[in-house]
């Protein structure tokens, strides 16, 4: 576990409200978007993430953080979403929803799921070169739009449109490839 995460988690155990709020404002939006890729329901997604934060705050002493705060949050939201799907009698055999959740929350580089990451990288390799380059800069290297614009000598707006197109294409490739993968 990262030293920073250890310090932060200790502060949570010490009931430091400032740190709690800081974690909340950083992780709440991506987590809700992540849940949206599974559940698609505004209220339900917000409830899932809010309840997780309440649980995190009230049971900090009991929680065992193995990896990082980030992966704990995402793994927990994923579990809660899967429980919700189970109640709705929906399976996600091909991980279609998982992929949707990953793309929707915008930053998948730190998620610890090698099998899926391998698939995503394979899909990126199938994109046209300029799309692949821009996707890598944004999602693997975590570069900001302004930085990508500078690197490629294009405007920020152009970066945005290109990213949008690349994302749509990536989604199609991912879904096609998983369907094929599971056909055999």
């Amino acid at each position, binding site marked *: 576990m990262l030293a920073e995460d250890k310090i932060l988690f200790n502060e949570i155990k*010490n*009931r*430091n409200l400032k740190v709690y709020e800081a974690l909340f404002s950083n992780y709440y939006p991506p987590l809700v978007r992540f849940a949206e890729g599974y559940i698609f329901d505004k209220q339900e997604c917000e409830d899932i993430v809010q309840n997780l*934060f309440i649980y995190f705050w009230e049971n900090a002493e009991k929680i065992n953080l193995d990896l990082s705060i980030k992966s704990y949050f995402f793994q927990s939201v994923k579990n809660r979403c899967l429980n919700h799907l189970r109640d709705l009698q929906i399976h996600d055999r091909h991980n279609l929803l998982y992929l949707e959740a990953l793309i929707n929350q915008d930053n998948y580089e730190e998620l610890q799921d090698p099998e899926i990451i391998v698939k995503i990288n394979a899909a990126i390799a199938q994109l046209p070169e300029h799309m692949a380059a821009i996707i890598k800069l944004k999602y693997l290297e975590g570069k900001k739009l302004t930085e990508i614009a500078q690197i490629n000598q294009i405007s920020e707006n152009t970066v945005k449109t290109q990213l949008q197109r690349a994302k749509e294409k990536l989604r199609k490739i991912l879904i096609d490839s998983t369907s094929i993968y599971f056909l055999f």
Partner: protein
Amino acid sequence: MQKERTIIDFEIIWKKINHSTTEQEERLLSGWLKENPAHQRYMDNAMNYFHEGSIFEDNKTMSENAWKAMNIKERQSATHRTAWIISISAAVIAILMAINYLIPNNELSIAPLAMEKAIQIKAGTNKALLILNDGSVHDLTASKSLVLNEGGAEIKSAGDKLQYTRQKNITKEVKYNTLSVPRGGEFFLQLSDGTKVWMNSESELRYPVQFNGKERRVELSGEAFFEVARNEKVPFFVESGEQTVKVLGTEFNISSYKEDQSIYTTLVKGSVEVSLKSMPEIKQILAPNEQSSVNKLETQILKHIVDPYNYVAWKDGRFVFDDQTLGAIMKKLSKWYNVEVVFASDEQRDFRFTGDLQRYADFGEVLKKIGKTNEVKFIIEKNKITIR
């Protein structure tokens, strides 16, 4: 007797959204849908998501509102609670700085600033990306010019317009180009048959470089005004999402933004036939001054009489609003001025305005005019406008 429970895989829902279910899957799906109203809700939400994109808007408002909601929840759920111990020590400040450093774009210090001098947001300009058949991208901005040759047509860009000229050698293979206009942009395009297209911000048009077959067909997302070159033998089709418009020779506007519930087609001159792509038997013929709306979730086409000027004035450099909500107005303006708009509460969204504004004015001027007419306050920071 045990109640029956159908378990389905999400793949079936995905296929349903993409119209590719088999008969057996259809049966399974409809069984599942009938079992519980929550199942139908899930299906509706999923469809909405895949058609319209994410429901959530900007991160900051989202987490701020949720933080407030959380505090209420916690108070309700607390039976016995240790008092909050807030220790603002040097150590904590160091930790907060560490978070700032670790996570860029972090929004720890939230200080909305109202600054008059920040009102310098410029109107959109001529800019677009041209994407050729092979996927290569050319940036067309106001200052650049470009001459290309592809698929039997000459392509010329002079910075504010793109023109295709048909050449004699007809090639068998049809090549497609895409013109993509970003937020804060507009562009004029003339296709190889002479059809003129004015493209609005955040819009995309895919078209063949040269029209060879028995019909002319293009695909639009976003908003564009068409002046279709007359040719009764070769009808012109515009596809946008669920809708197909069939044209002989005429002037009309289509607004088909992803985030909107409906696709609007407004006819100025001539006649067009609007139909649903998946159910071509559902159709409406429009006469001048008529507008059709196709709700993306329902399978019907509605027709109303409108003043077409309100819907096409954008191409002549005006913004016209006739008794429209501030929510709808700001949505349009945000595309043209490329700004993010946040409403402090939903109440302001429903204020209604009527006006005829200059499209090329600075944003500050436009806001001043709206601000004068009602009790709305605009707070501007960089490219974000908060309305309260």
